[in-house]
């Protein structure tokens, strides 16, 4: 079982590096989809079946398709991206590496765990997550629908052309 973890971990890290390194945005999207699928594999290894399904449906199925549609509709794939200067790129890699070192130093002493006898076996199954979602977290769940409504209205308002742009010669 733990070999699967290291396999999925290697796939995630390599495809994440490819997201940053790829020249074409479509290649970045494909690499990010591979990364998300391997993260869904991690969820299944952690017995989080509900999250694995939702992750594949929401991220791989909806969000990444949205990215691909924007790239296709705006024809961004042909655009030659000007690269940042060498100093900025070296500074970016150094900042990422130092950030990683700082966080690793913060967790190097280990993390405590609950005892196995007080462990709830149903955690991660649909019934457990749904029960928690509709009892303890009911109010945030309802408020998130308002957030979605505002996001929809905001996206429509931002994406709509002004009337002056559409028909500039009209009186």
């Amino acid at each position, binding site marked *: *079982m*733990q070999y699967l973890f290291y396999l999925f*971990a290697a796939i*995630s*890290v390599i495809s*994440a590096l490819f*997201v*940053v390194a790829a020249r074409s*945005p479509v290649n970045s*999207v494909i690499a*990010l989809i591979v*990364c*998300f699928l391997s*993260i869904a594999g*991690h969820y299944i*290894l*952690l*017995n*989080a079946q*509900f*999250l694995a399904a*939702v*992750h594949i449906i*929401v*991220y791989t199925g*909806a*969000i990444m398709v*949205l*990215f691909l549609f*924007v790239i296709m509709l*705006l024809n*961004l794939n042909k655009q030659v*991206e000007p690269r*940042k200067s060498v100093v*900025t*790129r070296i500074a*970016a890699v150094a900042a*990422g*590496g130092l950030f990683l070192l700082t966080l690793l130093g913060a*967790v190097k002493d280990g*993390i405590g*765990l*609950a005892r*196995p006898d007080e*462990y709830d*076996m149903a*955690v*991660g199954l649909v019934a457990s*997550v749904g029960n*928690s979602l509709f009892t303890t*977290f009911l109010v*945030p769940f309802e408020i*998130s629908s308002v957030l*979605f409504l505002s*996001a929809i209205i*905001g*996206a429509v308002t*931002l*994406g709509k*052309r002004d009337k002056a742009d559409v028909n500039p010669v009209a009186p």
Partner: protein
Amino acid sequence: MNEVITAIRAVPLEHYVVLSLILFSIGMAGVLFRRNTIILLMCIELMFNSVNLLLTAFSAHHGDPGGQVFVFFIMLVAAAEVTVGLAILVMMKRNVDSIDINQINRLRG
């Protein structure tokens, strides 16, 4: 039923922490590294997912469903964020005919 917890704990929690930190650092370095705004949005998604993975790992190892509900909420917020972010990107492409992040440094309408 005890083989579930044995299978989950075959991989130590620290390894999940290290994997999440590596993914988060790659996302952060990518935000600093690239100029293409759509790749910047993808790197933000990568950072979201590393945090999601860490919350799920802690939730599964501690037997607490609250962490997984929180991951569900993060997914909702990420979907809303991507919707608005891509709408802003479309508007940016239409107004300045570029998605280079360095073009958007003037802070004026």
